[in-house]
């Protein structure tokens, strides 16, 4: 499917959604739920509010669908809405995610056991998001979208509505924080070490 064809498909689908056609609503949700969920998950980490957030993001999408002026692809536009929902969630302090503290038993797992690396990776993710909980909403968004979701800095800047320079600075500051935390935490340090997951999957 060419870009132009995909674009026309999007326009047609949006037209159908605007008439309130249930099949179109379902189709749009099914087409984009994966990317929206992945985006929210990478920004916020494992979260018990994920269902509500996913629903909230799509409600925002459908409410402002008439405002999609086709200057960007529908997917990019939906990403922007998702990022806004994540930002709003992070900005509300009382609902801020707090990573559960690790118990003594799982503090330093042995790397010799077969499932140990998987456990280490899980703990690494927890510890990483615990550090990210200490960051401001804008820095966290920039860092997670760039470093974890793998989006180029220019795309991240556009998504968060900021300049590339400011985005780069936020990513750099967040990275410094994570590196500082890793220096004092061997599990996080091990998790951040490149190649860990590859070894684990092998």
């Amino acid at each position, binding site marked *: 499917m*060419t870009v*132009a*064809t995909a*674009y*026309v498909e999007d*326009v*047609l689908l*949006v*037209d*159908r*959604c*605007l*008439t*309130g056609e*249930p099949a179109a*609503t*379902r189709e749009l*949700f*099914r087409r984009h*739920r994966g990317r929206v*969920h*992945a985006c929210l*998950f*990478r920004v916020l*980490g*494992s979260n018990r509010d*994920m*269902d509500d957030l*996913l*629903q909230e993001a*799509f*409600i925002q999408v*459908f*409410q402002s669908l*008439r405002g999609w*002026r*086709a200057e960007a692809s529908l997917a990019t536009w939906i990403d922007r809405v998702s990022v806004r929902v994540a930002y709003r969630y992070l900005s509300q302090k009382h609902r801020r995610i707090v990573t559960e503290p690790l118990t003594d038993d799982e503090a330093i797992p042995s790397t010799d056991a077969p499932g140990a690396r998987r456990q280490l*990776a899980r703990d*690494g*993710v927890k510890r*990483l998001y615990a550090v990210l909980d200490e960051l401001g909403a804008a820095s966290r968004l920039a860092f997670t979208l760039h*470093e*974890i*979701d*793998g989006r180029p800095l220019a795309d991240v800047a556009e998504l968060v509505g900021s300049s590339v320079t400011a985005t780069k600075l936020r990513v750099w500051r967040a*990275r410094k924080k*994570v*590196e500082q935390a890793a220096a004092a935490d061997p599990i996080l340090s091990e*998790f*951040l070490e*490149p190649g*860990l*997951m590859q070894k684990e999957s092998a």
Partner: protein
Amino acid sequence: MKLVGKVPVEPLEEERLTNIERNLVVHVSEMAQRPAARAPSRMLAFAAVAFAVLVAGFIGWKLRGADVVPATEPERIALMQGKLDLGDADIASSPNANATIERTPGRVVIVMKIGRLDLHVEHKPGRLFVVRAGDVEIEDVGTRFSVDYDGKNVDVRVTEGEVKVKRNGTVVAIKANEAWTLELGKTTIAVLAERAASHATSPQTTAQTTTQTTATNENVVAIAPTANANAGSGSGTTTHKGGATNARKAILGRTPQAPAIDLGGKPSVKSYIDYANEPGRTLDEKAWALYGSALLQHKTKHDKEALYTLSGLLRPDRKVNAYKPALWLQVRIRCLQAMDDKCREAASLYLQKFVSGPEAGIAQQILSEISQ
């Protein structure tokens, strides 16, 4: 630090996703049934006025007691037939010329009402030399050039040096042997001479040009008598800024609008969408379906929806056959609503893409009407 792929996304259970989907379907159908919320325009207007008053008050307070430096009163010269020597500029005008010159030490502005001016202007750093003809502004950069203005059309020809032609926020540099007209934009003097010669040999065009002083714009010539006939009928058809006049409505209504594809039976927006969604449809077929949908929405007085549908077709990177009629439909909808900036934008966009045909003539006429 390489974290891409290291944070696996935990999948959501199918049941939870189904719940979300169900909630969304209910929410969206309710939303579609609800009338669109009206913008709080009165509140906004009130807030804007209050803000303006505050700003004006603040500026007044800041400027209180400040010495007011009187601006140099510009010298005004009425320019009729003949020659005028301004010291650093020679201006020759045609018998029918009517223009006014406003001159201050740093600025000469010639406002043309009609006629032709031949100018030879010396370049003087720090001095602005501008000729205004309608909404077109010609800024001299040290040169010999002529401006022909018949009240609607502008024809600029440069024989030496360079001028800058400014219109609707765009600036075009015109150098020696180049020309600029409202119809063609930047071109060459040779092309204009060729066109003038071909017009002179065409009896049909010669007959039509009796209503116009410039023969360079056949589209406007073809349309203008109709508009004038309507305007002169005395049935409240006076054209004025801001309102959709009967004359304009009549002209826009008479312009052929490309028909939508025939799907058999009574067309509906849904039938066009279904048609477009049929497997194997080409991009062009889908685009025509979108156009048909927009045309139907316009005919059923759903202009907002029609403009929305058109926005899907009118991207600059679109290369579909329905692009031209879609662009014109946008002009038609916008300009029937009001002769405002949106109408002007739509007409300008059309003229940028298509310079010939009756639609281009009307678009040009609309732009002239707005600029008056």
